[in-house]
């Protein structure tokens, strides 16, 4: 039995705004959420890239202590996004705790802020016999901390999936949640991802020469996906969540239907853990279309992974061209906020839904001169007022993991 799956509520906390109104305003005005990298008194001084997709507006939380005590910063983003999703959806507590609602939520590596404090303690050389790892440090920092803090806060008793595949974390969450409902294992799923401010991730990409460094004095001008003067990605922080529901159930309860997920694919390049792979990405797109039961000509918008790295954008362009030729418009939404890692998949999915609903396509920011090696596909360089009915959201991660989500307007 295969069931239809729809998205019925969303919430995003991003460098370009919290919630639909702020985010759409930023998209329409070409506002970037990339700011100077904040100091952390540890790594930031050594990192060459001095830019970061930052949440620099105040966040107010009203979580009670019994919930806060097991949460690091990443879980705050996750739980706040889910709280807003559940408020919008208006699901009753009986269903939430029925076992028919599950959670698919992850982050790149739990809470690095908390992990850092643990190591600080370990290596402090302190003779204080009471300086030890706190009972809650593991719960705050473990890799599935977002998913289980969500279950605890809202009393969710269904399945828990906690992907931690870097840049495909939340696209996998949405995709695996979709499959849970499609094949009848759950009736609804809360899906998403989050990542907090963290210089460890920046340092990793910095060491690999993959971070942007040429725009340290003008952070709002980077990253520049597909652009000739791009010089790498910009790490960012964010959180995002969606509620997926079985179509019949959503219809019956009169839920707002934001869009349908009609297909998902996920594969691995089967080789290099860092370099993207044209064959692997092409195959992901091909199998995504097959899973959705549509042809390449049916897709009228592609949200590209488009991190702004030298090679990644070229390889992604080649893969898109292999399947679609130069037809559907392509945008790289990371140009607005940098690479929010574990959150980027759900963010790009939700922004695509916003654009579908409101009838526009946001251009890739800063795309002044398209790199000729990326020029064979149809880039969106200016705001377009246009209807999008079927869209593809693609994401790729370290480790050779590729995902492709296919969304349809109902």
């Amino acid at each position, binding site marked *: 039995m295969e069931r239809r799956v729809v998205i019925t509520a969303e919430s995003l906390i991003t460098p370009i705004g919290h919630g639909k109104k702020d985010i759409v305003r930023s998209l329409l005005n070409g506002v970037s959420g990339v700011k100077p990298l904040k100091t952390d008194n540890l790594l930031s001084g050594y990192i060459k890239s001095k830019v970061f997709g930052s949440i620099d507006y105040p966040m107010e939380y009203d979580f*009670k*202590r*019994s919930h806060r*005590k*097991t949460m690091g910063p990443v879980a705050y983003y996750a739980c706040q996004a889910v709280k807003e999703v559940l408020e919008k959806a208006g699901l009753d507590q009986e269903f939430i705790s029925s076992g028919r609602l599950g959670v698919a939520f992850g982050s790149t590596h739990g809470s690095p802020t908390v992990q850092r404090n643990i190591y600080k303690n370990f290596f402090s050389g302190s003779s204080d*016999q*009471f300086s*030890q790892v*706190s*009972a*809650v440090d593991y*719960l705050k920092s473990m890799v599935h901390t977002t998913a289980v803090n969500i279950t605890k806060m809202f009393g969710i008793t269904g399945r828990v999936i906690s992907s931690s595949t870097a840049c495909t974390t939340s696209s996998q969450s949405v995709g695996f949640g979709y499959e849970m409902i499609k094949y009848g294992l759950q009736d609804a799923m809360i899906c998403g991802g989050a990542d907090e401010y963290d210089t460890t991730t920046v340092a990793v990409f910095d060491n690999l020469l993959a971070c942007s460094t040429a725009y340290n004095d003008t952070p709002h001008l980077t990253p520049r996906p597909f652009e000739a003067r791009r010089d790498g990605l910009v790490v960012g922080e964010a959180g995002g969540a969606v509620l997926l529901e079985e179509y019949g159930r959503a219809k019956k309860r009169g839920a707002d239907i934001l869009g349908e997920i009609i297909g998902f694919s996920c594969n691995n390049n089967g080789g290099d853990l860092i370099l993207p792979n044209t064959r692997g990405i092409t195959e992901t797109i091909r199998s995504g279309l097959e899973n959705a039961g549509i042809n390449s000509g049916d897709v009228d918008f592609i949200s590209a992974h488009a991190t702004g790295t030298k090679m990644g954008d070229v390889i992604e362009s080649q893969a898109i061209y292999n399947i679609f030729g130069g037809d559907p418009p392509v945008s790289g939404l990371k140009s607005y906020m940098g690479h929010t890692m574990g959150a980027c998949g759900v963010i790009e999915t939700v922004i695509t839904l916003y654009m579908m609903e409101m009838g526009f396509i946001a251009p890739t920011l800063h795309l002044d001169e398209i790199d000729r090696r990326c020029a064979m596909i149809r880039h969106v360089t200016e705001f377009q007022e246009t209807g999008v009915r079927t869209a593809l959201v693609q994401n790729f991660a370290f480790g050779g993991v590729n995902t492709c989500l296919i969304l349809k307007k109902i």
Partner: protein
Amino acid sequence: MTLTREKILNNLSEIFRTRFEIENPGLDENLREAYEFDSIDAIELLVEIEKMLGVSLTQEEKKSAMNVRTINQICDYIESLNASG
């Protein structure tokens, strides 16, 4: 130095206020039922008790604290540690 019960109560009051955001708990209130004070909190409290007494508790001493439910019982527990120490 052995702590008086009054001093222990004062210390606990401060710990519960600053560490657990619990203001003036009743001496015989069930902390789990009234404040969701659970086993994780109990482990955190044991660290605070070690600091208060200036000693490291043994695993057995820690395990014996797991059935403690009220402020009065915590005082009894600390006094028993004081007595055995």
